[in-house]
């Protein structure tokens, strides 16, 4: 019995791991009924995989049986692999017992589609309801909704989970059609839009009537697979930008494609996953969400791909040298944010600190900006007088020469974003 459970867990965790989201943040669910668990605003990573990804949630499929045949997915119908399915009770037992031991922040439940979308969705809903209603479980739940499930089931699930997601999978409709002819972006757009409207509606009602329950308090997210099909970075980020906007998504995840078959439509087995590219996409995503950049400034017809040797903020600056140098002592916060080598924290400190007097180089260094990078783009109280204007390719050379050694040693590290 326990042997079989271990076996099932191996199969169904292995099949679920390609969903890279493991965030447990954004929920402030309280442990009101003296049950088990609560939300943690910023989430907690309980451990890290050997590839350095945070492990916060028990991420499993209910089953890897599937009636679809998406070429990029290990669970596709035509793939000759071992299949398994958890019972609802097994999912509940695993979640409760892992949570009690402080292994996890919660559950990320998803599933292959067996029989029909609603049949599958109904089963997922049962697991979630059992946790909340019978076990008094208040830990985090992320539910991946099943494309094609009915509005009623989705609405009901939304009352119990913290986050919902549904994956775009391929960044463009053409890419999706190529690898999963049975699917369309429309299958994703509809539920995303539906849930978004529900979230708004519940919030409105809650303002009037306190007892209205929470609906998907940690919001929605989606994921795109990168590098399975030949989209440009521009394609990917334009899609992301439009989804952030249309559906108020909390996050878009980019998952570098890890070859899982020798299907001639995709990179062959053994091809390195595009981890650096994935990282550059995340940096671009941050610049859009937190640094006030419009996606068109970072990617456009002249620059459809992100540079690999330098981060997107630096490439933008080098393409726009006419805007620099920026005066640290007078410029707006929004402009200071755009200087390479200055992050959000430092930008805020600069704004605070300059109220007490003009800022000098040594102060900027203390505040924690990456001065060697930023110095090419700023002036402050004691900026050394410079005889000649450097061209952007020269500046790039200086910066690369300095960061080169660090960069080469750890090519796949999550690079810091400045």
């Amino acid at each position: 019995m326990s042997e079989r459970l271990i076996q099932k867990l191996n199969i169904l965790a292995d099949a679920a791991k390609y969903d890279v989201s493991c965030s447990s943040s954004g929920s402030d669910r309280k442990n009101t009924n003296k049950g088990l668990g609560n939300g943690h605003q910023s989430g907690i990573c309980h451990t890290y995989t050997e590839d350095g990804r945070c492990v916060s949630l028990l991420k499993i499929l209910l089953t890897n049986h599937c009636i679809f045949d998406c070429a990029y997915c290990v669970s596709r119908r035509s793939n000759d692999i071992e299949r398994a399915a958890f019972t609802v009770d097994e999912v509940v037992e695993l979640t409760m017992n892992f949570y009690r031991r402080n292994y996890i922040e919660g559950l990320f439940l998803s599933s292959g589609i067996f029989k029909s979308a609603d049949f599958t969705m109904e089963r997922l809903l049962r697991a979630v309801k059992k946790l909340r209603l019978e076990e008094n479980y208040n830990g985090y739940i992320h539910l991946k909704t099943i494309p094609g499930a009915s509005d009623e089931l989705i609405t009901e699930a939304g009352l119990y989970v913290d986050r919902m997601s549904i994956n775009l999978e391929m960044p463009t409709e053409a890419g999706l059609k190529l690898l999963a002819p049975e699917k369309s972006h429309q299958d994703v757009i509809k539920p995303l839009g539906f849930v978004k409207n529900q979230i708004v509606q519940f919030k409105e009602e809650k303002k009037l009537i306190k007892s209205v329950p929470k609906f998907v308090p940690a919001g929605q997210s989606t994921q795109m697979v990168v590098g399975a099909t030949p989209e440009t970075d521009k394609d990917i980020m334009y899609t992301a930008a439009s989804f952030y906007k249309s559906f108020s998504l909390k996050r878009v995840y980019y998952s570098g494609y890890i070859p899982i078959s020798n299907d001639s439509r995709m990179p062959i087995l053994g091809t390195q996953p595009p981890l650096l590219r994935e990282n550059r996409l995340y940096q671009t995503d941050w610049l859009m969400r937190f640094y006030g950049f419009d996606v068109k400034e970072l990617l456009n017809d002249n620059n459809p791909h992100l540079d690999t040797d330098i981060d997107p903020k630096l490439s933008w600056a080098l393409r726009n040298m006419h805007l620099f140098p920026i005066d640290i002592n007078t410029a707006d916060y929004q402009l200071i944010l755009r200087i390479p080598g200055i992050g959000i924290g430092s930008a805020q400190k600069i704004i605070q600190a300059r109220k007490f007097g003009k800022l000098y180089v040594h102060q900027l260094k203390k505040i924690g900006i990456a001065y060697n990078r930023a110095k090419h783009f700023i002036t402050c109280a004691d900026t050394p007088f410079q005889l000649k204007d450097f061209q952007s390719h020269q500046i790039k050379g200086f910066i690369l020469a300095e960061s080169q050694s660090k960069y080469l040693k750890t090519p796949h590290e999550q690079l810091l974003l400045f």
Partner: protein
Amino acid sequence: MIYIFDGTLEGLLTAVFEWFERKPGVATLKSKGTHQPDAFMPSFEVQSDREKADRVWRGLAQKLDRAWMRRAYCAYLSELPQIHHDLFQFIIYIFQNPHGAAQNYGHPQVLSITQTARKVEREKHRMEAFIRFQKTADGIFYCGIDPDFNVIPLLVNHFKNRYADQQWIIYDLKRHYGLFYDLQTVEEIEMGTDISLLKKTSQNLLDEKENLYADLWKNYFKSTNIVARKNTKLHTQHVPKRYWKYLTEKL
């Protein structure tokens, strides 16, 4: 002038009180444990006094916001040799200056308290992440820890709110005290048992299903890894090796 105190927070706060009573000029604060008598330096022994300490703490709360009060407390819990004196100086500095003095990051003790508190908070957060309970045969969820800093007092709320429906014990093996939650309240406990017994819970004291769940978790950890993405450097950056001993999945 050297002020000698008993190492407790109460003593430290009393020292501040006494200093303001006497105004002896520059003073160094040392705890009894670390003080080596010095014939050339006059010293003053502080007698811990609850009432005086409370007055200082309340006065401080008038001048500092809650985040700064917590920073001061966290810094104290670090138990670092230099921190007693730094905290002593910091509190005097705060009392002697107008509101807002704590934002002066150029001040050496302000910086020291900030940085030390950050380290303590980080370890507290790591404990919340890396503690792994084992269920014992009598139904209590137990975990022994040996943190660098004395973070146990900072863990009470998180674990009490989260694990409200199970009895649990978190025990500091280094400082020999811990927390016990009995489904109602959290109490500080000291266990008479030999420390070596507490370090490794013997098999026959564990719940019969404990090994199953530990195995399931280890298997999960293996299955969720993506070999093609291996990045050991990033891994150890997130989970420093000294914490591996806590982690069921690393055993």
